[in-house]
């Protein structure tokens, strides 16, 4: 097993879903059961990516495996020198783990969809889109340059558009798809500008080359501000894709797609792409950029958590929890705890996929009823779904012995350490508060769905446990949500192999632009490349964070039970008492209204103005031109008719006149001709007489 084989396997992994997509999109209708082919390609990819991960992590642990070639060579471009575009893939620990995660989640989603989507008229197309989605995400994960990343980034946007709008007969679904696409585009503009800043300066798209140049102190336009700007602009892409404030509005609407798609979007693919992107550019983020990122992550986490409390649609609650958890990851990256952000990305991928698939199972059982107010008591009817769902909920709430505890705890510890070092106490406060809210709304969801009495007897009677192909994914994801897969010690991730593989990379930004605790020190023996100071603080914060987060989670769970299980406090009365707050949360902070009043209204106004401008001014100019042209052609026509035709007619008339005259000479009589001959002779005679 050498590097080449790893590369080849990875390329195969990328191609396989694409192959499935092509086959299904062209022949899906004609080949019955062709979705099985797609699923088997994903399975093959899963196996081969496991192999890749195993060998990469065990035998090439510290090695960056890169394969690239020059795709386009512009040659020597004036003013810029030699330009070209390299494309290729890069295997490091992050990307192989991410690749494996993508395949796991994608595979279970495929498996789940077999039954869930059964009977859909576009069954094979659905699997084709899933394949395209997987392919795009793998491209993002494995690429080693910004350009390919951007291309696959847009492919992800496209496939998410196709999948969210899969039931495009529903207006809400097609609207949601459009919304997702457009909102993503807004972020992508920033991403593209960031890429262009880097390319304009370094003439390459490749990560390692760009980072190498920055590490040598070669800043874009020789200014730290531009480096900050590039970081934030690229982060804009992540804002769009990972549904961060203020572009988070598309994600809850994306629930219009089939539920397994939601699982895929929310767990391992689309939203993870944003976090993955920030992780990729982590090393080039300046202190200012990181602060911006952390703030946006914190704000997102807080806003979406507060919204999630009052939502009644099971998938919407999960959607807002996703946004909230993504806010956690982004915040974690912003405060410099790279490792925990990535860990949370992976753990979250599993339990959030599980949550969505579980909700899919519930919805399937309830005959596509999504409102939790009409559920309840489903524990008896759907035992397996219930217990797996409970495990996921514990994981997301951050209860010990789950994977979520390890990662969330780490993130909270990171914010605490950051606050201690820099004095930004805002982040840990928000972090812990959101942790409580998370526990609260997740247990609210569980209690309302599975506990208590059935509120819709009719649907309850007909509910039944899902078939095996849907339960196997749920169980396997539940197993993956347990601590043991990440660390043998449920309270300390540092004991696990994950900690061994994922290193926080050295920051490469110049000293004066980075946080003081991020300064790289060459003599660090440890895996963590942050300064000793940060590592030390993190260690100290760890136990504090653990205890605090446990308290907060416990509080949240307690509130949930008090209000919804034991009904000691009436939820309705509480909502009436806190009417303004309740409404504010229930209406999602009025973001949609705000945007439709401002951005959308502005766009519409601008469009109307442009339309008016088009109709009046441009059309006026065009019409004026037309009028002038008409007038010109009219007068030219007159000229034609009178002068030119007159000339022609006159010529014809003159010719005719001479013809009339001369035809008299052609009488057919010999003697007339003779007269002429003689006349000619006489004339010639007199002409030549003098000669």
């Amino acid at each position, binding site marked *: 097993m050498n590097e080449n084989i790893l590369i080849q396997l990875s390329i195969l992994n990328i191609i396989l879903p694409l192959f499935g997509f092509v086959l299904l999109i062209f022949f899906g209708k004609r080949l019955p059961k062709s979705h099985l082919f797609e699923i088997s390609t994903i399975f093959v990819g899963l196996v081969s990516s496991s192999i890749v991960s195993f060998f990469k992590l065990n035998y090439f642990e510290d090695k960056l495996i890169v394969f690239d070639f020059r795709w386009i060579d512009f040659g020597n471009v004036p003013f810029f020198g030699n330009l070209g575009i390299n494309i290729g893939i890069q295997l490091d620990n992050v990307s192989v783990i991410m690749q494996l995660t993508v395949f796991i989640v994608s595979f279970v989603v495929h498996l789940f969809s077999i039954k869930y989507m059964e009977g859909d008229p576009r069954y094979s197309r659905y699997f084709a889109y899933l394949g395209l989605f997987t392919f795009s995400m793998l491209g993002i994960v494995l690429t080693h340059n910004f350009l390919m990343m951007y291309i696959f980034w847009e492919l992800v946007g496209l496939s998410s558009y196709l999948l969210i709008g899969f039931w495009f007969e529903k207006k809400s679904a097609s609207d949601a798809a459009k919304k997702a696409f457009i909102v993503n585009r807004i972020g992508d503009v920033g991403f593209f500008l960031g890429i262009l800043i880097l390319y304009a300066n370094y003439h390459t798209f490749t990560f390692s080359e760009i980072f190498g140049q920055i590490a040598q102190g070669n800043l874009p336009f020789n200014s730290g501000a531009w480096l900050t700007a590039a970081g934030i602009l690229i982060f804009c892409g992540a804002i769009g894709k990972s549904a961060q404030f203020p572009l988070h509005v598309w994600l809850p609407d994306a629930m219009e797609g089939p539920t397994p798609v939601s699982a895929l979007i929310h767990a391992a693919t689309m939203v993870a792409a944003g976090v993955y992107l920030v992780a990729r550019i982590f090393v080039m983020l300046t202190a200012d950029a990181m602060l911006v990122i952390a703030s946006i992550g914190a704000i997102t986490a807080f806003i979406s958590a507060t919204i999630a409390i009052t939502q009644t649609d099971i998938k919407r609650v999960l959607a807002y929890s996703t946004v909230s958890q993504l806010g956690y990851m982004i915040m974690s990256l912003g405060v410099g705890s790279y490792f925990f952000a990535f860990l949370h990305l992976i753990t979250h991928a599993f339990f959030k996929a599980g949550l969505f698939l579980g909700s899919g199972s519930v919805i399937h059982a309830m005959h596509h009823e999504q409102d939790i107010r009409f559920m309840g008591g489903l524990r008896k009817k759907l035992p397996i779904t219930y217990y797996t769902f409970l495990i996921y909920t514990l994981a997301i709430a951050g209860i010990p012995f789950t994977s979520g505890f390890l990662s969330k705890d780490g993130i909270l510890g990171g914010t605490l350490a950051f606050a201690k070092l820099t004095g930004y106490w805002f982040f840990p406060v928000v972090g812990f508060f959101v942790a409580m809210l998370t526990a609260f709304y997740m247990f609210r969801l569980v209690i309302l769905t599975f506990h208590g009495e059935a509120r819709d007897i009719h649907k309850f009677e007909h509910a039944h446990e899902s078939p095996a192909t849907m339960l196997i994914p749920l169980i396997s994801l539940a197993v993956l949500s347990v601590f043991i897969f990440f660390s043998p010690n449920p309270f300390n991730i540092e004991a696990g192999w994950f900690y061994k593989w994922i290193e926080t990379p050295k920051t490469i930004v110049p000293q004066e632009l980075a946080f003081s605790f991020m300064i790289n020190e060459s003599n660090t023996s440890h895996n963590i490349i942050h300064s000793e100071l940060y590592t030390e603080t993190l260690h100290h914060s760890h136990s504090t964070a653990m205890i605090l987060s446990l308290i907060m989670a416990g509080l949240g769970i307690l509130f949930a039970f008090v209000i919804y299980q034991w009904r000691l406090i009436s939820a309705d009365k509480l909502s009436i008492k806190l009417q303004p707050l309740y409404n504010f949360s229930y209406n999602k902070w009025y973001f949609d209204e705000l945007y439709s009043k401002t951005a959308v209204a502005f766009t519409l106004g601008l469009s109307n103005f442009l339309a008016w401008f088009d109709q009046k001014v441009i059309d006026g100019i065009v019409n004026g031109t037309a009028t002038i042209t008409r007038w010109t052609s009219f007068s030219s026509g007159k000229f034609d008719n009178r002068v030119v035709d007159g000339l022609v007619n006159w010529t014809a008339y003159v010719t005719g006149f001479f013809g009339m005259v001369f035809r008299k000479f*052609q*009488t*057919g*009589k*010999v*003697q007339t*001709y*003779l*007269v002429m001959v*003689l006349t000619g002779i006489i004339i010639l005679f007199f002409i030549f007489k003098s000669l």
Partner: protein
Amino acid sequence: MTVGLNHFLALSAVLFSLGIYAVLTRKNAIQVLMGIELILNSANINFIAFAHYGNFGLTGQVISLFVIILAAAEAAIALAIVLNIYKQYSTVNVDEIDGLKE
């Protein structure tokens, strides 16, 4: 004023122009033929006058003799043609025979 060469030449010139006039104006084909005869005669007068005054011996006379022979042949053929035309068109008026027009 003693009659000399010029008188004969002048006579033949007048005769010639009269013949031309006849050829050009007359409608009857036979009269056109007559005009031609006049022209031939004027030419003969010229020949003989030059032979007489130019000391060329009898050459002029012989040539005029040939002219007369040709005139006879021409008259015979022309009249045959005229008769033919008459059979064809029932007229010998040259102006009505304008097939050349088409």
